[in-house]
């Protein structure tokens, strides 16, 4: 049995390769000048630069938080380069894209060309800060859907950006959100007009490539009245020795009757399996607001990568009858540490939220669920159901659950339940007895364990997620 565990632990990172493309990178360091340079390079209007500077000034007065149950070497913010872009720009078609870059995507399994034809997914690929190829533009334009890199949207739709930027996650929100607001490089902007059901699933692919660059992207999705959108985000990063910082901000705004579904598969480099050296620090602020009545925001995440994950996709349920959902599978193997969960803030009446969190710890991994459910005074008849289950594989890992529950309204009902267990010998025996190998049995049990969450993922992601779990868990037995 230990053999099998060791085999799993020794599994190498599949996506650890470096693309040799000439990059235009700013020297490491953070100052007002660096922010001005970023802003200038991107030709930003003055109000945005002012906003960045305000955020930077605020950040200077903040202290790095340390309450999460993770341990990592402290980050030297002056050693990070805050801007990095592939040199070639302004491409008209995919053919003009650097072939090396396309090969990278092929290795990652997102062939743009093929996806264009087959999958019906419009991909806005963010490759170290600058979006290089966007597909299915025309199709989306027909419906009036705006899906473009953030830097373009700032010029084309300044009013929309001005209205919504920082409206859900203000730059004063937390340390990493402030840092992101000051230096964010690019990201995606999505606007779904009134009454439109987005004809396809929107998708971006983030990747950190250049050494010592932090990725600070910003995503803003606005769904106007009666609209509907599903957004996919995938992440992988190549193998690097030094820890890289990823501090993204995602803001979602759902107006009356609108639905936003945001799905993430995160598979960043988790660090060296044996020593735990390197790997990505994934400190992300994700928050959505259900502004209008009957709106709905649903977060689904599969977190298998990163050395340290620190992320709490949240919903503010402001509109009456609005719904917030959070489905998560978090896996911590080797030396990975994950402190993740969600926050549901019930403000409107008859608001509902569901939290399903599945944590899997293996090797020396530490997995923490930390979630908050808040029922404010006005949240009449609000309802919450939370379920947080953990599986432990191997005897050196840890699983922790820290739910915070605040109820200020007696008509609100909330339930939280959690279990922690390993894969039972009897379960394995049962499968073995029926001719299923131990490896298959574990994979089956874990997949079954995560089924509630995988079922929420869009087709393309569900396949990928299942595969990812299988790869990282092959043969693990508790």
């Amino acid at each position, binding site marked *: 049995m230990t053999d099998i565990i060791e085999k799993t632990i020794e599994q190498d990172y599949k996506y650890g390769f470096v693309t040799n493309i000439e990059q235009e990178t700013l020297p490491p360091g953070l100052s007002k000048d660096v922010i001005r340079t970023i802003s200038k390079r991107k030709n930003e209007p003055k109000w945005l630069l002012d906003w960045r500077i305000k955020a930077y000034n605020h950040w200077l007065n903040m202290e790095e938080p340390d309450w999460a149950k993770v341990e990592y070497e402290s980050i030297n913010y002056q050693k990070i380069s805050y801007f990095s872009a592939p040199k070639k720009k302004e491409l008209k078609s995919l053919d003009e894209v650097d072939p090396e870059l396309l090969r990278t995507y092929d290795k990652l399994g997102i062939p743009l060309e093929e996806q264009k034809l087959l999958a019906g997914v419009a991909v806005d690929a963010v490759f170290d800060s600058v979006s290089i190829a966007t597909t299915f533009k025309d199709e989306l334009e027909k419906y009036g859907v705006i899906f473009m890199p953030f830097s373009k949207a700032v010029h084309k739709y300044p009013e929309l950006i001005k209205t919504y930027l920082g409206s859900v996650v203000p730059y004063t929100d937390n340390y990493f959100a402030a840092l992101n607001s000051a230096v964010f490089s690019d990201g995606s902007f999505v606007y779904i007009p009134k009454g439109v059901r987005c004809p396809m699933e929107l998708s971006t692919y983030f990747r950190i490539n250049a050494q010592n660059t932090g990725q600070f992207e910003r995503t803003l999705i606005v769904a106007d009245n009666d609209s509907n959108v599903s957004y996919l985000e995938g992440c992988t990063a190549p193998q690097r020795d030094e820890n890289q910082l990823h501090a993204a901000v995602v803001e979602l705004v759902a107006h009356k009757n609108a639905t936003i579904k945001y799905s993430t598969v995160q598979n960043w480099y988790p660090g060296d399996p044996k020593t735990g050296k390197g790997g990505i620090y994934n400190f992300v602020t994700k928050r959505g607001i259900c502004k209008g009545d009957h709106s709905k925001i649903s977060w689904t995440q599969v977190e298998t990568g990163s050395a340290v994950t620190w992320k709490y996709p949240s919903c503010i349920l402001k509109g009456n009858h609005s719904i917030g959902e959070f489905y998560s599978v978090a896996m911590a193997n080797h030396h990975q540490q994950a402190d993740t969960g969600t926050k549901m803030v019930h403000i409107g009446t008859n608001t509902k939220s569901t939290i399903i969190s599945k944590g899997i710890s293996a090797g020396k991994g530490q997995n923490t669920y930390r979630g908050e459910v808040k029922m404010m005074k006005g949240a009449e008849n609000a309802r919450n159901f939370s379920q947080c289950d953990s599986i432990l594989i191997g005897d050196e890992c840890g699983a922790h659950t820290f739910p915070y529950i605040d109820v200020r309204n007696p008509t609100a*009902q909330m339930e939280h339940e959690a279990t922690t267990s390993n894969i039972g010998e009897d379960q394995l025996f049962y499968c073995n007895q029926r001719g299923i190998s131990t490896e298959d049995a574990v994979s089956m049990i874990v997949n079954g364990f995560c089924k509630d969450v995988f079922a929420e993922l869009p087709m393309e992601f569900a396949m990928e997620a299942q595969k990812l779990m299988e790869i990282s868990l092959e043969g693990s037995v508790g």
Partner: protein
Amino acid sequence: MSLSHFQAEFEKMMNRDYFSSSIHPMRNEAFSKFNECGFPTQKWEDWQFTNLTSLQKDTFRISELKDGPTQKIDLSPFHIDNVANIVIYNGHFQKDISHFPSGINLMSGLDYLESKEWKYNNTYDSPFDLLNTAFMDSGMSVVIDENMTINTPIHMVFISNSNEPLMVNPRVHIDVGDSSSATFIEHHVGVSSSFFENGSIFINLEQNAQLNHIRIQSNSTKTISMANIQAEQSLDSKYTFFQYADGGQLGRLNMVTRLNGEGADCNLNGLALSKNNQHLDHHIITDHRVPHCTSSQNFKSILQDKSTGVFCGRTIVREQAQKTDSKQSNKNLLLSKNALMNSNPQLEIYADDVKCSHGSTTGELDHEALFYLRSRGIDMMEAKNLLTRGFANEIMNAIRHNCTRSFIDTKFKHWLGDEV
């Protein structure tokens, strides 16, 4: 109460001639540690829901001899049948009305500490434990030798009665020897105006020992009550705890139980009833350090008016503690629109072959259940009472002493009659 005021009181304490000076180094050390960490603020993770400004507003002085009783103490309101009373009035032991069952060895806390060469189990230094060590009164220690079964429960009554803001720091050590068993009831009552009670209890259970610990916190509603309980459990020992709390303006229970011997069992229960502006707080840590132990935490709160409640339970399962079986449950009933409950049931697990679960629910009385009762001719008040009592009953069953159970039942009914 500012730190400088504590300093002044501390000097007063050190100058008291009726305490042996051999305790001074220990007090000094604790007080300087307390000064270092200062008062908890709401920025501390463990104190984020508990506002201590009321404690800092008043200037409490330590209890003097003159604060002893001026007339005969009437024990009838606190009377429980079939127990041995030990009475402590404003921090002063009342020998003439105290009795204790045979078989136990009652000594002052200082004698006890001296016999232990000033060493006691204290690996968890909370600010209020430190404050207690710095200011502790002569204290009570209950030592039970091996193979003793103490049938009569020890009923320790802590009475507070003062018109001035007083601070008392009762300190109790309980040592239960190999294969012995006992029941310990601590009962906190009072009619004081402003009062600050900061009690620490250290419990040590030897191999196969059993302790049934019941705590009744019915302080005056102007009392700030801090209870710090630490229990160490050896092989096959069994510790059962039940707290009934309906008093205090601010009542907080900081409890740490450590399972150090295989086969140890720890069963913690609590019922908190709050109304008006009361704030009742449970902070419970169960630390599984060895394999094959079982534990449960089962806490309920019923909240009225503008009262607030906190449950923060943490079960830690260390790497070696395989085959742990632990349960954690927190259920809360909100009877008012303005009540607030913070529930924070935590699991921290480092071992893989364990069974751990936790659950938390918060809500109001079930409308359908109310309707069911009313449709059968039971009026609204009575229906609410019935359901609330039903909610509390589950946890009351953990009281393993019939006379105490009926005493608490009466108290609970009284509380309900007043409020629901």
